[in-house]
């Protein structure tokens, strides 16, 4: 069982959370001007690293807020948990 530290509620069991995927995919800023290729990259392509991964989770059976979790995909160790305010890299 993953023990996920919610920034607002503290450590809670994994089953209270819903996974939201890679936190660093970047939605095209200007939706109308963005090219098909930019949308394709955003919707479909993923880095899928083996190791440290920044991802979005929702504390759906708790405070219902979203958070940004840094987790090792090889060991499942949780490295960091923070509010989802950080800008994705460009």
């Amino acid at each position: 069982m993953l023990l996920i530290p919610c920034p607002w509620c503290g450590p809670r069991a994994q089953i209270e959370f819903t996974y939201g995927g890679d936190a660093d995919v970047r939605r095209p800023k200007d939706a109308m001007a963005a090219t098909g290729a930019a949308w394709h990259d955003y919707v479909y392509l993923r880095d899928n690293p083996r190791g440290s991964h920044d991802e979005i989770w929702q504390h759906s059976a708790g405070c219902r807020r979203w958070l940004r979790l840094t987790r090792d995909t090889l060991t499942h160790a949780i490295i960091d948990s923070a509010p989802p305010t950080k800008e994705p890299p460009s």
Partner: protein
Amino acid sequence: MLLRPFSLIDIDPIASHNDKRKLIEEIVTDSRRTLSSRMTSVPRGAGLKGYEMRYSALNLVRNAFSGHRAWPVAWRKAAPQASYDVVIIGGGGHGLATAYYLARNHGITNVAVLEKGWIGGGNTGRNTTIVRSNYLLDTNARFYEHSLKLWEGLTQELNFNLMVSQRGVLNLAHTPGQLESYARRGNAMRLNGIDAELLSRDQVAAMVPRLDCSDRARFPVLGGLLQPRGGTVRHDAVAWGFARAADQRGVDIIEGCEVTAIRRNERGVVGLETSRGAVQAKQIGIAVAGNSSRVAAMADLHLPIESHVLQAMVSEPIKPVLDQVVTSGATHFYISQSDKGELVFGGDLDGYNSYAQRGNLPIIEHVIASALEMFPSFAQLRLMRTWGGIMDMTMDGSPIIAKTPVPGLYFNGGWCYGGFKATPASGWVFAETIANDAPHALNEAFTLERFATGDVLDERGAGPAPWLH
């Protein structure tokens, strides 16, 4: 509650749809017909006396005289040569089948399969062995049906007992809506020439006596969709059988050899770096399942794939109690009984990116809770083992078997949680894609580009969230 089962259509009177069925038959027979002309004679393993001994009753008796100590090895422990025509990365079922069909169908035998661990040590040896072709979308249905047809003759062809058991795959319906969607899928299957039966609750109850089909059941059973030709195949034997047959045709199977880089020049691929030295290759095929993104990145390819962990588990072995594969999509649970007598359980992905070949307890608990609601008598059993494997989940839930933008580099992956049943067909069409530098009719749609062009193959309509497929 009384629910009248839908009856599935009888496809024979529908001429236009018969054409579709003819199309699959033509594709299959055509690939068979062209074989004999393409097959070449392969130099036999010189110096390896008795090495190609066939498995037969006669040889079983003959080997009894030497106390079964003189059986030849099933495949040589090959060391990497300086160069090959084709190198396949990944010694799972898909990589080994590809090498076998390169030799068998195309006469290409200067081939190596490079495996970082041991063959079949990845998902091939971790899956729950279910084979079926009960798909809704035409592209998937035709491809998986070709695979099922190949399974039906593969034990004889490979001279290796794959323990192919066509015991039937039964999908349970727990709601009227689900039963309607099964009627739709069953009809789609029949239109593609695939066997499908829609069963009433009474028929399900008679077929699976341990299943709680009563009105008190927490998940009431309203009926089911049966594919009688579906079933199970022994997974390890698939790796060993393809390895032995490929080796006999001259393919080098090199275990303990990790690919660390793919070398290219402006014209395309030229070779690889491995943990056992550099190897030159004219063509390279990637078949590494859960490690797809990492190996593709060696050639700067960015994939529509995420790696996720899928778990399975077995009970202690008991006498036969369950004759079919039974699945319940709505409760995220499926079950069958192995030849050893263990009940084999599986369910959904853990649901977060993972490269750890192990999962967490919530899914195990969920699977077992569903199992016990439906098969109350199994509560007496002890769970023996659980394990996990890394799934290459695509954004639409369907595989990719295609050329890549890099000349000479081919990609096979995105098998999600259902690539075992695809093994022979995947090897067949991937070998053809490499041999002809162009896809087979059955994998034309499984491209990398389909995500950009909008031609996604989303069997469940789940959208681009790989952990939901």
